[in-house]
């Protein structure tokens, strides 16, 4: 985290971090009363962190293999808080990227746009194209919004999501996407586009860059037609 602070080329995330540290300083000044509050919080989160998942697990209505079992909370490019299960009922086309990526992501994003443009008109309303950030620290909702507009992916069918580092790592585990931060604003990551059916079950994965998307589009169409 500190390393990114000294990385001066991107003013927006930097600003955000400075505000944070100022806030932290204020908190520290409050001393003992803060310790008091913190321990309540620690207690609360400890219980929450462990029990939260069971509450969702008890939800019998989603299948065993569904990503809608995941309890993690996400924020989209419009600053709205959502859970994965809010996307239930749509066929999802998902990819993990980060907006400051210079090498593979532009091609991955192009692949996503290409897939979207080739979808038959009669199923488009049943499909959501979801781009999940692997760099939640940098990719604020504002930045995701700017990225969406700059890449002409600003329609309702596009969803850009970010969460905590831990939730992101977990979600990557579900998608079998590997990633690693190799420098500030630089990640290695797998290039995988995943298709989920309306119930959140993995239907297909396309691996690699600039590959032929015919099979992916076929799968999306198959799943989406069921919803017509």
């Amino acid at each position, binding site marked *: 985290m500190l390393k990114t602070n000294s990385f001066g080329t991107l003013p927006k995330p930097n600003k955000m971090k400075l505000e944070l540290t100022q806030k932290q300083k204020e908190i520290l000044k409050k001393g003992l009363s803060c310790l008091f509050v913190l321990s309540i919080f620690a*207690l609360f989160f400890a219980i929450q962190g462990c029990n939260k998942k*069971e509450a969702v697990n008890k939800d019998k209505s989603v299948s065993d293999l569904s990503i809608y*079992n995941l309890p993690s909370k996400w924020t989209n490019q419009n600053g709205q808080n959502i859970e994965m299960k809010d996307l239930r009922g749509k066929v999802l086309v998902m990819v993990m990227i980060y907006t400051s990526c210079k090498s593979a992501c532009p091609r991955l994003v192009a692949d996503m746009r290409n897939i979207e443009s080739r979808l038959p008109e009669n199923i488009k309303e049943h499909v959501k194209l979801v781009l999940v950030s692997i760099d939640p620290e940098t990719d604020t909702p504002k930045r995701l919004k700017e990225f969406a507009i700059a890449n002409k992916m600003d329609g309702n069918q596009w969803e850009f999501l970010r969460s905590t580092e831990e939730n992101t790592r*977990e979600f990557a585990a579900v998608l079998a996407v590997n990633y690693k931060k190799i*420098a500030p604003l*630089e*990640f*290695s990551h797998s290039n995988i586009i995943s298709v989920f059916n309306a119930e959140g079950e993995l239907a297909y994965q396309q691996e690699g860059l600039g590959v032929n998307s015919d099979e992916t589009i076929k799968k999306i169409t198959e799943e989406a037609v069921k919803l017509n």
Partner: protein
Amino acid sequence: MSQLKKIITFFLLLINSVLFAQDVKMASINGGTFVPLYGATAKKPVKVAPFNIDIYPVTNAQYLAFVKKYPEYSRSKMKGLYADKSYLTQWESDFSYGKNNLSNAPITNVSWFAAKKYCECEGKRLPTMDEWEYVAMADEKRSDARTKEEFNKYILSWYEKPKTYANPVGQTFKNYWGVYDMHGLVWEWTADFNSIFLSGESRKDKDTDKNLFCGSGSVNATDLMNYAAFMRYAFRGSLKASYTTKNLGFRCAKDK
């Protein structure tokens, strides 16, 4: 007034520590830097902050207590999203590890999701790969024994030994930090196991698949001579989070 606050704070901290059920012994690991086999850019040392780690891997008995408390993690209730079909397959039933498994043998056939959840419910977390490797490079006397020939021979000889997963925990050597079984018993899950870019599949058997992975060429093994460690990273690289195998267990860690 502040006196009262102090007292309340103390009690809350006490409740915290009771809730986190610290009955499992942890070793205190000093922070430091090291160059891991894999994951350091341009061989720059990786910094490890001080942390605590369980001195033994989690056992059958401990895991049984966990599934009794959280039955949705029992063998028949476990969701397919979180574990494949061999989850806890060596156990006799949902709530018994049976006679063929020792109570103090390491729990195996658990997925990453299950291991992660177990640690969370203990108020802990899985160690990161760097943390795990940092602890694992110690022998009995040195915090970093990786250049010692005997140490590497010991690890490699374990890789050839069959069925060590059935042994009790704590029978291998106690390392510099007071931690047992980093080598010689089971492989272990780490929090960020999915940050490796070595393809385990033979159809893509190149070290770095440039097409599948973005920027993977910039992360390279710093020391391919360290075959023992290379095996561990290759193994992790071949895993998916829902996989379970009989020689793969875990232990938990905690921030200091």
